[in-house]
């Protein structure tokens, strides 16, 4: 009897093997802080993670132009096709607009990833210059996020470190415009100082932030701040300085002689690109932009059309301006002949596109032509009587084929500063249409209302800035 009891007790005790080890969770398919941020490779992967987010449809694949060009006088979504997009064009959008929410959330996701890199990469023991480059890249992307937010929404929360479960920053208040711009500039200055010049970025890393990209974005930030309530007296001068740095770096950047070459997916990351969101064919994430812009006869969805006003009146030089025929079109040619279609943005091309959601088209955030235009804008701000302010504009016009003497802008055909601003905006529209710039240009230069009036849309003061998304207001009482 005793032995029997002993046997059973032994079995029972034997089965009480160490539970502690049994209950430890073993991660198989993901990284945790215990196995990450250990070396240079980890730092690089983390930086790639900041970039990665930009490839989302809700960010630089689609939302970028839904909230900008589509919310301007350039393009629109056909009536009834999509309530959110239509509301942006007609300026009847509300805080529940999904595209506005996308823009808000996507930028903050990028900022979150950048904050992680900026906090956790510095303690890694690795080559100091590479480390500073990586942190500089993250600083640039964080600045880009906040610049996107401040131009679209005005005052927003300023989060500069990873947020923990117990952090007060989980429920932040809005920061002042001054603080937001100041942080953007600080980050860009770090990036400018620590990122590589474009010419020094290895071929395999094309797409990383260059010091020139930081300069170009700084120029734009200064010019934007210059027109805001947070303006600082030196803003335009600082902008000009930054533009000159970029234009002066001929080793890194140059205007392509042929406008069409900029946009071909067979000529990616060419010398005109200052910073672009990269896309590629499978196994990379492709870009849905072609699908959205192209009419169905070319395999697209025709989700966005060019406003008739811009198509008809936007290119007064007609077909002499190569951008008219190349960038927008109301006809397509296929094997069966020429078909008339509603005008659409045609400038992005991919010879290998398979009429699916994925083209290889990169999305330009900054390209050199724009820096020339920013240079002109800065000069006009500093001294509207400066005749050099026409140089940048004329350089871009000449490249587009407007080479006649009468095509050149000067004080005769553009006498006032206000006329200059209108001309500049028109030129920006021709050069950069479909590149997600228009709304911000019109806002920065105070011309959104008249521009929209020309396409029959009345814009009230409540619709100059986007509202903070309703979902965000619902969960954060501090906003």
């Amino acid at each position: 009897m005793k032995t029997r009891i002993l046997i059973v007790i032994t079995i029972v005790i034997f089965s009480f093997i160490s539970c502690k080890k049994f209950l430890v969770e073993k991660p198989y398919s993901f990284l945790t802080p215990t196995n990450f941020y250990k070396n240079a490779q980890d730092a690089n992967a983390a930086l790639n993670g900041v970039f990665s987010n930009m490839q989302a449809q809700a960010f630089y694949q689609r939302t970028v132009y839904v909230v900008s060009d589509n919310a301007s006088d350039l393009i629109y979504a056909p009536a009834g096709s999509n309530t959110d997009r239509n509301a942006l064009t007609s300026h009847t959008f509300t805080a529940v607009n999904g595209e506005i929410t996308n823009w808000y959330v996507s930028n903050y996701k990028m900022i979150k990833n950048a904050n992680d890199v900026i906090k956790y990469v510095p303690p890694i023991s690795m080559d100091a210059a590479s480390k500073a480059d990586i942190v500089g890249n993250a600083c640039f992307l964080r600045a880009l996020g906040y610049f996107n937010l401040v131009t679209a929404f005005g005052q927003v929360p300023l989060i500069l470190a990873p947020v923990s479960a117990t952090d007060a920053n989980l429920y932040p208040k809005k920061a002042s415009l001054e603080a937001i711009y100041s942080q953007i500039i600080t980050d860009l200055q770090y990036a400018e100082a620590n990122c590589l010049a474009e010419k020094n970025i290895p071929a395999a890393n094309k797409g990383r932030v260059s010091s020139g990209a930081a300069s170009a974005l700084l120029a734009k930030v200064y010019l934007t701040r210059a027109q805001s309530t947070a303006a600082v007296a030196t803003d335009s001068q600082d902008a000009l300085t930054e533009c000159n740095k970029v234009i002066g770096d001929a080793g890194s950047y140059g205007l392509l002689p042929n406008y069409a070459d900029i946009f071909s997916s067979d000529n990616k990351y060419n010398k005109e690109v200052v910073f672009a969101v990269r896309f590629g064919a499978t196994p990379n994430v492709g870009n849905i932009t072609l699908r959205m812009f192209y009419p169905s006869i070319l395999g697209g969805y025709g989700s966005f059309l060019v406003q008739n006003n811009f198509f008809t009146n936007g290119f007064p030089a007609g077909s002499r301006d190569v951008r008219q025929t190349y960038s927008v079109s109301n006809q397509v040619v296929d094997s069966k002949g020429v078909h008339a279609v509603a005008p659409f943005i045609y400038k992005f091309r991919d010879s290998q596109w398979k009429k699916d959601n994925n083209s290889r088209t990169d999305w330009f955030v900054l390209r050199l032509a724009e820096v020339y235009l920013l240079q002109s804008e800065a000069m006009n701000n500093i001294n509207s009587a400066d005749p050099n302010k026409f140089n940048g504009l004329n350089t871009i016009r000449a490249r587009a084929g407007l080479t006649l003497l009468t095509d050149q802008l000067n004080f005769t055909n553009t006498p006032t500063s206000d006329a200059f601003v209108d001309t500049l905006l028109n030129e920006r529209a021709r050069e950069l249409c479909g590149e997600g710039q228009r709304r911000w240009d019109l806002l920065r230069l105070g011309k959104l209302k008249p521009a929209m009036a020309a396409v029959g849309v009345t814009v009230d003061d409540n619709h100059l800035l986007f509202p903070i998304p309703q979902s965000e207001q619902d969960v954060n009482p501090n906003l």
Partner: protein
Amino acid sequence: MKKKILHNKVFSAPHYRKFLLMFNWTFVLSFLFCLEVSANSYSQNVKVSLDLKDVTLKKAIYLLEQKGKTRFLYSEQLLPQNTKITLSAKDEPLLGILNKILENTGLDYQVSDAGLVMIALKGSVIKNITVKGTVIDDKGQPLPGVSIKVLGTSAGTVTSASGEYQISVPEGATLVFSYIGFLSQSVEVGTKTQIDVTLKIDEASQKLNEVVVVGYGTQRKGDLTGSIASISGKDLDKTPVLGADQMLQGRVSGLQFTQSDGQPGSPTSVRIRGTNSINSGNEPLYVVDGFAGVGNLSSINPSDIQSIEVLKDASATAIYGSRGANGVVLITTKKGKAGQDAISIDAYTGVQTMAKKLGLMNASQFAQYLDDYFTQANAANPNTAVALPYTQAQVTGLGTGTDWQKALYRVAPVQNYQLSFNGGTQKARYYLSFNHFDQDGIMLNTGFRRELVRLNLDRNIGDKIKMGFSSQLSYSKQAVDPTITGVGYGSAGVALSMSPIVPLRDTTGAYTFQNGPLPYVGTYGNPVAAVVDANDNIANSRALINVFGEYEFIKGFKFKSSFGIDYGNAIEKSYLPSTIYIGQATGGAAYSSTSTSYSWLNENTLSFSKEFNNIHAIDAVVGFSLQQFKTSAYSAGAQNFFTDNLGTDNLAIGANILTPLSNTYQNSIASYFGRLNYRLMGKYLFTFTMRADGSSRFGLTNKWGYFPSGAVAWRASEEKFIKNIQQISDLKIRASYGVTGNQEIGSYQSLSQYAINGYTLGTNMSRVVGVSPNNIANPSLGWESTASFDVSADLGLFHNRISITVDYYHKTTTNLLLNVSIPQSSGFSSILLNAGKVANQGFEFSLTSRNIEAKNFNWTSTLNFSTNSNKVLDMNGTNNILVGSTGPYIVTNGLAPSILRVGQPIGSFYGYHFDGVWQTQEQITAAGRTGVVPGDAIIRDLDGNGIINGNDREIIGHAAPKFIFSINNTFSYKNFDLTIFAQGVEGNKILNVTKYAHTGGTTANEFTSMLSAWHGPGTSNTVPRVFSSTERSVGVVDNYLENGSYLRIQTVSLAYKIPVPQTSRVFKSASIFVTVQNLYTFTKYTGYNPEVNTYGAQNLNAGTQNLNPGSQNLNIGADINSYPPSRTFLLGVKAGF
């Protein structure tokens, strides 16, 4: 008369009472026990004291029987009526007193060989005669092992396997036939030599003696303290169901069953006593033959199920600790029975038809609609005006066009074949079954097929060791709608959306490629071409094996150890050919994935069972268990195929190889548990349980949880004062309190995780791997615990012809595993915390009544009724959380349709009120509104500020029903059995998102309700003008929220038992049946099916491995393009050999 009195006495005598309560398998023991008692009590030498004063002879004999604790055999007619007896005896031998009593009566007594005291006329000789006969039950089946006793003696016999007996008894004796679970019957032998007896089932004792499976053991129903509903295989046999989980529908009060849609094999959802949890799983724990954590019931064969027990209150579920909070469903499969080998064949076949079609516009109506729409659109946007799609002549000439619902759905066959073998000896028993089930879906090219083998073996080794083996191998294949790429998308929706103007086939006879005319309508592919030419199959293989050994090392102490594994493999293959619309963009797309899951369970228990002095009974078990789950999955895909011939079977020929994915997850649970049942005097019952669970899923500082429970029950009907109330045959009052847990949050939730993503870098556009933070870690993440209180009563009336169970419960779930929405300025949308509180309380009522019990006609009714009210008490200090999404149809941002609000139930719809249609501009101006025109919907301006925005939303309805009910009626007349089963819910709302898609806009065909759209002042106050987008752009509006109450005639089944001659050597039994399922639904709901929960599948996934578990848990009561339900007609046969 005599017979009756004697019978009653026998029945109420203490040892007989005892006898009746014994288990079947202890029959022999109890028989011996009875013999012993009789032999002791019956003695001719027993001394009796008796005082009789002028009593009748009958009374005198009766009193002597009482005092002497013995029985005499006599015929009442023999006793002289007028004889009065007076005598006084003190400690005299019984037989001496009998002698005195019988003096001068002309009577005498004899003592038979068996010790029977027989009173007879003086001089007569009582002969022994041999009586033979057969004992059968009321179904005509022979009963082996029936005890036959000669009344008043220890003599007796038992029936053989064929129910026959033979016994030698004195003439005039009375035989008592008794058998566990049957009413005893006494028969006066007289001079008969052949006595055949039909024993009737004793509903009262059978019910109390029914053995109910509880966690880690079994209990007699009469001894239960917890709230457990038991469904026996016999009930389940009556009507065929297609899946094991469907057996639960309407059978248990407090249990709500919903199928997410009508697709064969589609997931089902079960809620026991409401929704406890906001973000973790709410499904009960499924335990099959002791193996806990068996998720998928679709691979369990309904015909193999012996019984299902649903454990509802904490007393019953706390033994499952951390997994008990949502209730536990115990499934016991059939085991071999000792005795003759039996073979049975069940087969049925049938057809399914579409139960309901939705009313859509025909071609002519839709063309007119498009013209109307674009006329209004052009007026509103003259800058972007378009030409109207049709001329008036075209409109009228189009006719009815294509009925896409008719084209996509079919009459689909279903069939099921089951062959089983059952038998064995007392030492070794077996059950072996084969099943083939094949159900086509009513949507073309969809269906579910299952092949299954089950083998269960039990073996006794000596008296002390038992071992058992249960196993199941199954293979099932589900063909699903291949176009589904997300909830609410798929062919069911496309069929409703396609323009009726587009023909099914073009002039060449090929399927029309896509919807038209573009760009006036939405771009969809032909749904018929999609389901016919594309395919998506999921093949599931599963092995469920459990072995145990039990050793009784000291009498009353048993050690049991079991080891089980559940191995599953799922392979999904889908192919979209380039020739159809959805495959064109990719040039053909193939996708293949494999998921392998493996879980093992080791359990060791020590149990002790003993009764002391008939007063105390203890039944205790303690144990230890370890369980681990591991899942590995990978998937691969390719696009751009130059040929569609090979489909998924050669991904390498695709020009675009998609990034392959793989992942592995593991979680473990370690547990200690114990239970003590204590029964005092057979009427006071106590249960205490305790479980300690450690789960890998929780934070480092919070791995272990402790779950105690206690319960008391009082069998009031055992008390004298209630026993005297004849009408009450059973009354038990129970109360329990306990704490159970919930760990269904998915693995790795407490850890900080980095997600893997990619980016494109370099002149060659290389893909580089990126890593970014994916959540906010919570190292103190712990259990969600539910404290529940239950008080209930079981009442049996009129010999249990009516039995009633009522329960009241109150549950409070605290430390909710709550996905708290946080401002997205953090870069995250939510964090998982232990925060918040939810309460559920409810009332359950179930009644079974045998209304009519006649010779040839029986009518039994069962009614279940339950209410549950749910309330969110706290959410980490937040009063409101918006939850759920509505898919693409309302607003593209998927604005949350529901709200979690403190003080309100989970599943509260949140939105705007529809107040009619603006009729005139003057009306709009007077109301001070802008941005609307006559014909637009009037959205109620709750805050009265003239602007419609988020502040104008409020709770507009609830997804949870006020009550659920079911009624089952069974009629039997001779060999016919008719079952009518109806069930329903009352008082819930359904968000009909499908209706959003088909009332307004031009992307989809329209419901015929749009024919009465507003087209001028006074034309409609319910349907806005066709161009109005007010409702869909604003969010959820209450005119899309419909009453979801329904009453469904779920099953009507008529069976005929073919009389099989007793002499048949082949057939033992045979019956045929016809069944109609989903015969008719009474409802006001306008969609396909009020029993719908489009996001139900996601609800089930809560607790698996997704990183945002339970996010859809709250998406209750939405109907988005669901696969429609079918009506099924079945014809079947059952035969036993």
